């Protein structure tokens, strides 16, 4: 039974590329029929069974490429839309949802197994958001970067949690989200990690100036009102925070893309 297994092998390689399980069987059935039709045609041209099978499979082309193209043709739009709506609800929801959930399951305060966890409600809410975003990334994002997005989202949500614990840095996080999205959009358009990184570094520079400007403003105000400039201890903290939350996700993403593609620095020409 060597011959059928070659076709099965090919179909299995294609299957692995198609993420939407529901369409796998009908799509593979169609491909299988095609290979058999082609094989039969080669046999009636005078080839033997084995040659015909090999040639029919070769005619199909690289199973990975075929699978990827089929995967692209079958994004689960309806399911995705549902998850998208959930995502929006999730983001519109607040930490109160987390606290309500805590009350419902009977853990009324912030102590779990004897350990005090600050902002437990927020934590639960953010974990929920993380799960939703990860599913979205797994469904919609191109295969080679979906993992990177999930990692970065985890990183950003951790940063958000930390910022909830210490509310000062919240405004920065909004900018981080914008930053990451712009990185991905640029990557999608240009297929070049380099351009994405350039945008990241530029926006970091913008934020840097913003922080410095705000601080200077602050000191001027303090000086005018109180006669003293006030403490400088917040400046390094703010800079460190924007550095970490702005650059680390993008660098992680770039590293993931680089590790997936042997020569990612090429720029797609239009």
């Amino acid at each position, binding site marked *: 039974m060597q011959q059928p297994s070659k076709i099965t092998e090919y179909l299995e390689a294609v299957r692995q590329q198609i993420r939407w399980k529901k369409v796998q069987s*009908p*799509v593979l*059935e*169609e*491909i299988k*029929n*095609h290979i*058999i*039709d*082609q094989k039969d045609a080669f046999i009636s041209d005078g080839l033997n069974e084995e040659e015909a099978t090999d040639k029919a499979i070769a*005619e*199909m*082309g*690289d199973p990975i*490429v*075929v699978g990827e*193209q*089929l995967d*692209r*043709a*079958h994004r689960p739009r309806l399911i995705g839309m549902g998850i998208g709506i959930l995502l929006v609800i999730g983001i519109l929801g607040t930490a109160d949802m987390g606290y309500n959930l805590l009350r419902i399951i009977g853990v009324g305060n912030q102590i779990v197994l004897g350990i005090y966890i600050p902002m437990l409600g927020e934590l639960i809410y953010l974990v929920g958001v993380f799960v939703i975003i990860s599913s979205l990334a797994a469904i919609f994002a191109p295969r080679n970067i979906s993992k990177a997005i999930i990692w970065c989202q985890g990183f950003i949500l951790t940063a958000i949690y930390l910022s909830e614990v210490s509310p000062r840095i919240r405004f920065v996080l909004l900018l981080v989200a914008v930053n990451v999205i712009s990185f991905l959009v640029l990557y999608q358009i240009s297929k070049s990690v380099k351009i994405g990184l350039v945008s990241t570094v530029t926006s970091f520079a913008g934020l840097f100036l913003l922080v410095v400007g705000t601080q200077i403003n602050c000191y001027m105000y303090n000086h005018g009102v109180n006669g003293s400039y006030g403490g400088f201890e917040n400046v390094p903290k703010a800079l460190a925070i924007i550095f970490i939350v702005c650059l680390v996700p993008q660098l992680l993403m770039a590293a993931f893309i680089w590790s997936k593609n042997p020569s990612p620095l090429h720029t797609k020409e239009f």
Partner: protein
Amino acid sequence: MAIDKSLLTGSTTMLILKLLDETNMYGYQMIEELRKKSNNAFELKAGTLYPLLHTLEQKNMLTSYEETADNARVRKYYSITKNGRKQLKEKKEEWKAYTAAVNGVLGGASFATA
């Protein structure tokens, strides 16, 4: 005569729609028909055809149905929709304008630019 692949990709949709405009077909049949009609010039790969067919189906240019062949295998037939016919008409016109322009340049004459 083999034809450069990049010349084919843009027009494949139009060719498929044209084939289906005449009669309903399954994938393998389309490749065979295309090969015959083009005197072996268009060797459309199945790996290109099926993703394209599925995309066109989602865009509502084609619909598909299953039919059992004599050898008990179930075949997936495609047929063109009203929307598909409309697209075909547009693509044909685009193509005519494009080839006229290319011919104009190749022929060295400037009459193509009206």
